[in-house]
């Protein structure tokens, strides 16, 4: 089987344009992957439609990530990489967040449970909020990490604080205070968690997981 000549547009794009009209701002084909840009406020509708519509069936969320470009004028992008297991098809959906505006999109945790930790990682590294996420807190850096969001372009490679201050803060941390109640039994460290996290854990706010 020979590779198809030229860029091949995913048939999902005309279907999306017919369904959502101007909410699909533009699309592109790069390395035979189709990229669709959608408006921020409609991103959840578009993704839900892509998951549930017969003929689309994007039932697997490969990845959620974000991109910040070197050009300070360019907005941040949130990227959802979708996969349809029955159709063996891929689609990349992006939405742009102006740096001046609120860095927040709707969470897709209610569509794909796998978005839980992926969205937490994007929040941890870029500071992008996900409205509707059940437990949005840092996942790679520790709970009390105070230097900001490491993958943003305005974040210095060595961090904001001096090495001595970083070392002091790291040594002051309680190693057990990084995990939620479901992940480890941390009754001893409960009092050292931030107040809002204590409240969330005490309420058992993880939906059906509790």
């Amino acid at each position: 089987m020979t590779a198809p000549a030229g860029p091949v547009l995913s048939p999902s794009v005309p279907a999306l344009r017919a369904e959502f009209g101007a909410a699909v701002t533009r699309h592109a084909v790069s390395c035979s992957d189709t990229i669709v840009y959608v408006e921020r406020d409609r991103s959840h509708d578009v993704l839900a439609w892509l998951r549930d519509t017969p003929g689309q069936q994007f039932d697997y969320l490969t990845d959620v990530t974000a991109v910040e470009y070197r050009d300070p004028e360019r907005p941040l992008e949130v990227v959802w990489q979708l996969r349809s297991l029955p159709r063996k098809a891929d689609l990349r959906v992006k939405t742009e967040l102006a740096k001046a505006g609120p860095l927040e999109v709707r969470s897709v945790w209610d569509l794909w449970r796998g978005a839980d930790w992926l969205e937490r990682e994007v929040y941890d590294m870029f500071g992008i909020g996900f409205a509707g996420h059940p437990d949005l807190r840092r996942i790679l850096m520790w709970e009390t990490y105070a230097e900001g969001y490491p993958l943003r372009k305005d974040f210095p490679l060595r961090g904001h604080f001096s090495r001595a201050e970083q070392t002091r803060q790291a040594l002051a941390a309680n190693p057990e205070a990084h995990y939620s109640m479901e992940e480890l039994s941390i009754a001893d460290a409960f009092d050292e968690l931030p107040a809002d996290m204590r409240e969330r854990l005490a309420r058992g706010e993880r939906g059906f997981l509790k």
Partner: protein
Amino acid sequence: MGLTNPATEYTRVDGSTVSSVSPNWVTTRLDFLTNWARSNSLWPMPFGTACCAIEYMATAASRFDIARFGMERQSFSPRQADVLICAGRLPFKLAPVIRRIWDQMPQPKWSISMGACASSGGIFDNYSMVQGIDTIIPVDVYVPGCPPRPEGLIYGIRLLQKKIMGESLADETLRDEKLVAPSGLFLPPERVDELSEPFGNSVQQTRST
């Protein structure tokens, strides 16, 4: 004769002095016996975080076999360990963990910093990585390499054994380790900054600020 030697003054790291019986025939023979026993029954506490841990495993396995040097038992409990071997890079998130393991190890204890990352941060001169574990715990032997071959680690272990053979029970400053209270640092902050300074090629890299 040797038993009547006068007391000797030793100087501590912080400048204060401590007087102690000077070495004589009995203490030096006792030192030799103790050091011989200690250096030939070092139980390692492996703290493997990265590729150095693979080389450490190769060192422990049959071809290189550190059991030949008295390290028969891998002590995965710090309570029964003598030497902490940090094999691999140490992120700040793990700094309190290795500090706690070090505190749990009973004296006498030693540590080996295995590889470039554990010794200096290596190529990871960034926001998340400790720039040398000697800012967290005292280190006896640094093994260079990325990662060091088993021969390199064995050479480091032999150096540590040599160091132990030179220890003396009469030296009360030997295991002085004071925390710069109450921050948890065991070195003054300016010393940590100095140890963490970029060096080599790292100085030339472009930074966002």
